[in-house]
């Protein structure tokens, strides 16, 4: 039956999945760095085009795959960042090859895995079936595990191992939650396929057993929350970011966390649809706030630059989860906006950091000083990125934070106070590090690095533009999604 379902895969929707899948196979077979790197970019671009076409023509939902306003946001974002990241990785990996951190064999593996990851994420986003979605997320986890461990250094393997164990436990919990959801749905929708299909689940969720849904959400929250990187389930995230290749850090922060968050949102909608079930918002708000403040404090003692930005990812994921937990059109809008802005900004930061680490030959911040003197473009790029991520105008994140804080303060002043405190703490840490890393007497090598600035400044440019002017269609689109999220 599944074959029958998957057969009309020739439409745009299928293309978004098939292009990376086939790409992965091709890249796995293809030797040679230069070609495969270019091809990687090309495939990513094709996927992006296919995803964009989803905006115009939207195929009817099938039993396995479907597109609606919500996941199309994520898909477009994912494919776009995947494209820019592949462009960045082309120049990054070249350098890694030169200094011999990677061998051609691993490189082939790397590119294949990259596309597999894209496939997995797109599948997770487009899946109309909670089981399929779970499979996709698991696949994504496994691929990223392999890529985190790719340097095969002591630290890399340790990080990958940590990521693997925690990830698979989390994913197991998510599966249990999924089963429970099925159990809850079965009495209403009957046995078999329908009880796992989003479109039907959402329609009928009001009839499900509320208690079961509550228990299910506990498992799902912890399961997918692990992938989102919410405290106290975050432990894998910093090391995985710090030890993997930088393009993967960018993809992790920019995309994979979003995919997991997307899954959470879906189930939140499910519960929101059921009046008897306890509102999931409280849990999300609590964990979000916890992650925000916790990550804010953790930022102060970081010595590794990539790990620091990983913690900042935790902080922002917490903020986004908080926003969605608060709910309401304004907060949801802000959450969506913040998520997109964070993906763009954080991946941009990792682009900069990747080149900086290559230029200075280290990731230890103590050894990186005065970047704006030694590498002006990279340095100022980093400054701009950090300023953006710290939520300073006129960049996009300020707008979303403005909406989140002010809308929260009107509804729950106390929460807003905590929120502001957390933001301020994180802000202080980021700026402290920034003023050390970007300014002062330059240390380390000042040799110019061969870097591709286009992806970096493309992202920052977008963030800046969004901070000043959001095009009306985008706004309308986000607003409809926000209403969808309830």
């Amino acid at each position, binding site marked *: 039956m599944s074959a029958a379902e998957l057969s009309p895969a020739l439409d745009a929707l299928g293309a978004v999945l098939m292009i990376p899948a086939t790409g992965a196979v091709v890249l796995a077979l293809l030797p040679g760095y230069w070609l495969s790197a270019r091809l990687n970019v090309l495939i990513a671009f094709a996927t992006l085009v296919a995803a964009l076409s989803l905006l115009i023509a939207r195929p009817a939902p099938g039993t396995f795959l479907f597109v609606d306003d919500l996941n199309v946001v994520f898909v477009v974002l994912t494919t776009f960042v995947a494209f820019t990241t592949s462009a960045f990785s082309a120049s990054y990996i070249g350098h890694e090859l030169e200094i011999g951190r990677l061998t051609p064999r691993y490189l082939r593996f790397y590119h294949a895995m990259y596309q597999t990851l894209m496939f997995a994420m797109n599948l997770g986003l487009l899946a109309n079936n909670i089981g399929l979605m779970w499979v996709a997320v698991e696949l994504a986890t496994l691929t990223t595990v392999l890529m985190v461990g790719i340097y095969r250094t002591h630290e890399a393997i340790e990080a990958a191992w940590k990521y693997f164990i925690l990830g698979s436990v989390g994913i197991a919990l998510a599966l249990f939650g999924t089963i429970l959801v099925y159990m809850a749905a079965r009495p209403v929708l009957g046995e078999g396929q329908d009880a796992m299909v989003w479109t039907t689940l959402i329609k009928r969720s009001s009839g499900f057993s509320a208690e079961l849904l509550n228990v299910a959400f506990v498992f799902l929250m912890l399961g997918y929350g692990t992938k989102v990187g919410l405290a106290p389930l975050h432990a894998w995230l910093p090391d995985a970011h710090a030890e993997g290749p930088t393009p993967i850090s960018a993809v992790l922060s920019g995309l994979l966390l979003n995919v997991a968050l997307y899954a959470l949102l879906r189930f939140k909608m499910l519960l929101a649809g059921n009046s008897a079930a306890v509102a999931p918002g409280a849990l999300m708000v609590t964990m979000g706030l916890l992650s925000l403040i916790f990550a804010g404090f*953790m930022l102060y003692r970081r010595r590794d630059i990539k790990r620091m930005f990983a913690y900042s990812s935790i902080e922002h994921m917490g903020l986004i989860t908080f926003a969605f937990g608060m709910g309401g059109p304004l907060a949801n809008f802000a959450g969506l906006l913040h998520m997109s802005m964070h993906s763009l900004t954080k991946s941009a930061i990792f682009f900069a950091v990747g080149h900086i680490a290559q230029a200075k030959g280290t990731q230890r911040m103590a050894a990186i000083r005065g970047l704006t003197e030694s590498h002006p473009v990279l340095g100022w790029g980093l400054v701009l990125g950090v300023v953006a991520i710290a939520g300073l105008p006129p960049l996009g994140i300020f707008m979303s934070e403005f909406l989140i804080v002010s809308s929260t303060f009107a509804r729950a002043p106390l929460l807003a106070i905590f929120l502001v405190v957390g933001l301020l703490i994180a802000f202080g840490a980021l700026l402290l590090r920034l003023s050390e890393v970007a300014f002062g007497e330059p240390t380390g090598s000042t040799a110019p690095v061969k870097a591709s600035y286009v992806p970096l400044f493309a992202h920052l440019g977008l963030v800046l533009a969004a901070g*000043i002017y959001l095009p009306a269609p985008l706004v309308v689109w986000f607003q409809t999604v926000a209403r969808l999220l309830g």
Partner: protein
Amino acid sequence: MLVAMALMGVAVLLAAALLAMALQALRGASHFVYPLCFMACAVLLGIACWALLTAADPAPTLVLPIGLPWIGAHFRIDTLSAFFLLVTNLGGAGASLFAIGYGRHETAPGRVLPFYPAFLAGMNLVVLADDAFAFLIAWEFMSLSSWALVMSHHLDAENRRAGYIYIVMASFGTLTLLLAFGLLAGSGGGYAFSDIRSVAVALPGLTLTLVLIGTGSKAGLVPLHVWLPLAHPAAPSHVSALMSGVMTKVAVYGFVRIVFDLMRPADWWWSILVIAVAGVTCVLGVLSALMQHDLKRLLAYHTVENIGIIFIGLGLALAFSAYGMQAPAALALTAALFHVFNHCLFKSLLFFGAGAVLNATGERDMEHLGGLIHNMPLTAFAFLTGCTAISALPPLNGFVSEWLTFQAILLSPALPSWALKLLVPAVGAMLALSAALAAACFVKAFGVTFLGRPRTPLAASAHETDRASLAAMLAFALFCLLSGVLPGLFIDGLAPVTQGLVGAHMPAQTTLPWLSIVPIAESRSSYNGLLVFVFILISTLLTIEVIHRFASREVRRGPAWDCGFPDPSPATQYTADSFAQPIRRVFGSVVFRATERIDMAAPGDARASRLTVIVRDLVWEAFYAPVAGLVSALAEWLNRLQFLTIRQYLSLVFVALIGLLLLVSIWL
């Protein structure tokens, strides 16, 4: 239309910023960036004057489809905006003019040129903005660009620290303002100022406190002022002038706009808060200034003092209008706003002077200066004018606004509230005290820097600064004199502003004979700057005339007498610290726990004996050190979570799961 023109001006500034960014490689970029800024500011200045004089009703507005969607960016020029637009661009034009000369000596132009126009643009936008989002964006953009300017001389660790503290305090202020707007707008999300005006604010007391913190942290109210004396000196001098002379005024604008326009004063106890803080700010600011020997830092502390004076006026206005006493409220408000104008003038002037000195000698530390009046007479003259003005001495402008404030205080016995009855006189005394101390402080500043004998070769070999800088300084000196001599004109200019805010304005002044000013009624009090000035002028000329006619005219130059034993070494002169010593003994021992440790060499011992003065910053120790300590302690404590084993992390997950399941099983 008017607004559009203003925005055009801002756009020009932003374009200049981009241009500078593109051309920072070029050496001579400053040659056209600063003139461009000057012209833009001049245009905006013209617009502001026109708007203020015509006082169009309803005020011209403009909505751009940018910024927050479904609201857009609102801009508006009412009289209040117009007045502050005037102040902003007056300062901006002056600074740009000064920088045309000063900027040439900039060591790192690439780090100044792009941000300077952006800074100007940000300040203008704050004044123009008419919705919360645009306001906050502009506000924070202003902070951000000024932060970049503070960091422009980043190789000095001191400056980096200053920049860090500054940006953190700034974002703290912004967040509090954000919360305040959250309260003002309500959950509906009506962020346009017009909407905010229309709805009644939920928790006025809390909102006011938040606003006071938010704007106060930018204006430099004690205890939120700590960043100010660090950041202002760290920036290049023309930027310091802007930050002290203009940016703090923009903060005052924020306070006035929100409290008087958006909220409308209601409770009298608000004013107690404001007045008390302001009084403390005055005295603490000037006392701290007295303890300094870094010229620019001294000036920065004086900014704190003057902000205190301004806020005293605002607080009184709040009190009066809370009791519906409109005429006094108008007087107090006028005093405050007029002082805003004046302080912008003389503080910019003084920072220009400091810049010129820094430029000529490379020194900010007064202990290494002295005798500059010989080599830089014009700078000295301009600086002296500024000193006289800021010390509130007639016939210059500083005196007029303080005089008006005193008059406002004299009207406050009519206030029914007892707390105010007790508070206001005390604050009046503080005001008088700070005025007197300011005089002392500037005798020190001018005396040690410009008078006496040069203390270092650098100071001895100083040279007069360039034309553009001189033009800027002398122009501002002239303005100081004008607004001191003809205050009536400016007060009448402020009439529409106060009319709009407290529903009353001071009696028209320009119609009075001899251009004197009368706050309430002539029988009560009046002051005529022009006449005083003329009297002084006449009598001076008269005496000179008489003396030179009848007395002997010959002059013999000889060595200083100095009670018979002149000393060759200039080191024996009174230094800044020794000048401040008596005052430090009188006040400092309490306010700063100032202590002196004297290490006197025993007779026959060759080693130099030394005197060390320890001045502690109690504000920092009381408010900031604990917070910093707490944060770092918590960070340290939580940081252990980075070093757990996988198993321990798993147990975290496990515990979380069990906990939630328990929750579910018990509660649900």
